[in-house]
């Protein structure tokens, strides 16, 4: 048996780096803090590679061929009651190791990239210390041994995202975006928390291994109808999913993601493309046995929300001009597909194809999407604008960026033999088995994906060569190296026999390429590609005509279907003006008014009473005499006892 306790270092190293650079950061030269952070990440990356190798190849499987769930470290952190307690630890199983690899790799790449990208920025070391904080929190989330540890790191991930989005804190839009991201996800986290509360109450445990094991209390308790015809467990899973939907930007909690692009581009690549936004998928995958066994309705919710979000975001992505926003909606769309895949999946063996596909897509998407973002970063770095209309013909100036961007585009469009093809194919296959309608919806999404990606690609690299203020030039080495590495991964990742490592019941199985699914998918992808080529390869008026032809619909899509406006209306107008303000008023005038009224009455009464104290001796005497007489009368006649 291999001792995995060294995996605790994976959490501790970034934490230590964060604390050190947070406390003493201004003593170092900026570059030093960047290098320390990167070096730390390198160590972690190596460690997680070692862990993965040892886990998948050197650790014995259980008797029935499953990968074991290993508690590498588990320390009691806080006790609630005899049964409920929060532990801090490291749980190793296929999906957590897969996530470890994704997070450390992308994070490592982003660190290297940032040394070039953020060079000369004010707050360079602040940036790196926040990155370390993020890495720490994300890794903690991934290896969480219990749902409460996950919640803790979930919150920490949220706050590091907040800090990084608001990195350019003097820019109002960045401040607003960071605030929005935090509050929206916080709202979703409330759902998560309620889900945890219900879950922990019904099952009496937070522990993942207990919860998802064969004799999970979640399978036996909380099955009764509780509310609106659904069982307690179903509700708890729906609430948990709300948390996941918030982090993963699922409709209708997606509004923060496009705005989050206000952060520095490496941050978008790391947090808002590859790692944090897939936490929701990971969360559902973690609790997957509960979903399939006792909460199929909740799983259906996951499916429908995922499917809807994917198509919704894809449509919006076709109409946006800010390249980072296009990528953001693309991310949302792809995560929607992952959710969809989880939603259609069953448990065990080939039934669990969707689960595997979802994880596979998560894996490949992390690489090609971070590649896309980093490439976009390189482009922005070169031309100093985000808007694609102001670009064009860049392929001559930025050859490496161009090549890597193209690879990523092909991959996300599902063109074989790039990684995106394999994972997307599995998703469609899984969807085909569950529901034909949704299968076609996802097919359309797939086509749209290819379309908007190539729309982006052509607008940036082809078309008329815009006159730039100064000639764009290729990014520094630290940036291009990472682009190349990620491109290589994107090229090769599809050939990993993913189902041999990750499956819903942790038993390896063989997934085959089903041509009847793969062919139409590729065709749809190619269609999207050709349409985009037709429209955007050279400047044409067709897109404009189509845009006008669709009229209101396209305008609505351009305005992101007015969801933002709706939320703004609810929060600003209703909550702020019609709830909070009246409460403030109520407090001042009614509650406080009652208290002041009390004092006023007392005061007034005393003013009235003091009239009796007139200073007129004879009045006093009269009162005294009358009183004496009255008392005499009272004691002599009235009080007969």
């Amino acid at each position: 048996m291999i001792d995995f306790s060294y995996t605790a270092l994976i959490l501790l190293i970034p934490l230590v780096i964060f604390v050190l650079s947070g406390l003493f950061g201004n003593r170092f030269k900026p570059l030093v803090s960047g290098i320390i952070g990167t070096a730390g990440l390198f160590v972690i990356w190596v460690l997680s590679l070692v862990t993965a190798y040892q886990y998948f190849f050197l650790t014995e499987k259980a008797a029935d061929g499953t990968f074991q769930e290993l508690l590498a470290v588990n320390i009691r952190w806080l006790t609630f009651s005899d049964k409920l307690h929060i532990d801090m630890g490291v749980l190793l199983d296929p999906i957590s190791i897969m996530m470890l690899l994704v997070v450390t790799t992308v994070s490592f790449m982003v660190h290297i990239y940032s040394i070039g990208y953020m060079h000369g920025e004010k707050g360079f070391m602040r940036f790196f210390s926040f990155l370390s904080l993020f890495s720490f929190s994300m890794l903690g989330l991934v290896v969480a041994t219990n749902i409460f540890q996950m919640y803790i790191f979930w919150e920490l991930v949220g706050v590091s995202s907040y800090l990084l989005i608001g990195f350019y804190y003097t820019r109002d839009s960045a401040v607003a975006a960071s605030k929005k991201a935090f509050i929206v996800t916080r709202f979703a986290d409330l759902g998560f928390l309620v889900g945890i509360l219900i879950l922990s109450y019904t099952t009496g445990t937070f522990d993942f291994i207990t919860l998802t094991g064969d004799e999970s209390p979640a399978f036996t308790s909380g099955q009764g109808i509780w509310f609106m015809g659904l069982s307690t467990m179903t509700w708890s899973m729906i609430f948990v999913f709300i948390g996941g939907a918030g982090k993963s930007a699922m409709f209708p909690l997606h509004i923060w993601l496009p705005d989050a692009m206000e952060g520095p581009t490496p941050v978008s690549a790391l947090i808002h493309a590859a790692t944090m936004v897939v936490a929701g998928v990971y969360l559902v995958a973690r609790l997957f046995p509960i979903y399939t066994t006792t909460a199929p309705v909740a799983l259906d919710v996951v499916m429908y929300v995922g499917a809807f979000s994917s198509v919704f975001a894809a449509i919006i992505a076709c109409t946006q001009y800010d390249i980072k926003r296009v990528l953001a909606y693309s991310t949302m769309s792809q995560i929607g597909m992952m959710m969809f895949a989880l939603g259609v999946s069953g448990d065990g063996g080939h039934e669990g194809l969707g689960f595997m596909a979802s994880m596979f897509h998560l894996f490949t998407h992390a690489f090609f999407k971070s590649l896309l973002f980093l490439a976009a970063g390189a482009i922005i770095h070169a031309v100093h604008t985000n808007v694609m209309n102001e670009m064009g013909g860049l392929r001559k100036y930025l050859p490496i960026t161009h090549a890597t961007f193209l690879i990523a585009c092909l991959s996300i469009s599902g063109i074989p033999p790039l990684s995106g093809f394999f994972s997307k194919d599995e998703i469609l296959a899984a969807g085909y088995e569950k529901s034909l309608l949704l299968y076609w919806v996802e097919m359309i999404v797939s086509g749209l994906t290819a379309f908007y990606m190539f729309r982006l690609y052509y607008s940036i690299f082809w078309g008329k060569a815009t006159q730039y203020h100064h000639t764009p030039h290729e990014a520094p080495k630290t940036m291009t190296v990472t682009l190349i590495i990620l491109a290589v991964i994107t090229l090769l990742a599809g050939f990993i026999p993913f189902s041999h490592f990750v499956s819903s019941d942790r038993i390896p199985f063989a997934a085959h390429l089903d041509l009847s699914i793969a062919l139409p998918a590729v065709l749809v992808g190619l269609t999207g590609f050709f349409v985009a080529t037709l429209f955007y390869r050279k400047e044409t008026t067709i897109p404009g005509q189509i845009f006008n032809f669709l009229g209101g619909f396209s305008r609505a899509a351009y305005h992101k279907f007015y969801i933002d406006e709706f939320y703004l209306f609810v929060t600003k107008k209703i909550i702020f003006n019609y709830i909070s303000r009246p409460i403030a008023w109520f407090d001042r005038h009614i509650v406080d008014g009652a208290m002041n009224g009390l004092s006023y009455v007392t005061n007034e009464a005393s003013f009235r009473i003091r009239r009796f104290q007139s200073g007129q001796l004879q009045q006093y005497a009269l009162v005294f005499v009358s009183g004496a007489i009255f008392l005499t009368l009272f004691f002599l006649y009235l009080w007969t006892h």
Partner: protein
Amino acid sequence: MFEGVPLTWFLITGTIMFFIGIYGFLVRKNLITILMSTELILNSVNINFVAFNKILYPDHLEGMFFTIFIIAVAAAEASVAIAIIINIYRRLVNIDVEKMNEMKY
């Protein structure tokens, strides 16, 4: 031995005198007249004391002594009161009790 007049008569006379004194105290404005009303009240009490003493307990002298003391106190009181009245008069040039309401509120 005192005969002929029942105790009650004295007491009634005293009571009437007492309440006349009270009435004066309540309605008169001039401080000196108020002082005079006070004297009436004291005297009415004296009459009672003396009557009680003589008619009910003729072998004792408590009533009489009380009266003596009351007279002494009354004298002291009158002298001090008049000193105060004169003092007030010096300051306010008037001894109307209704105008003396410095102590109000």
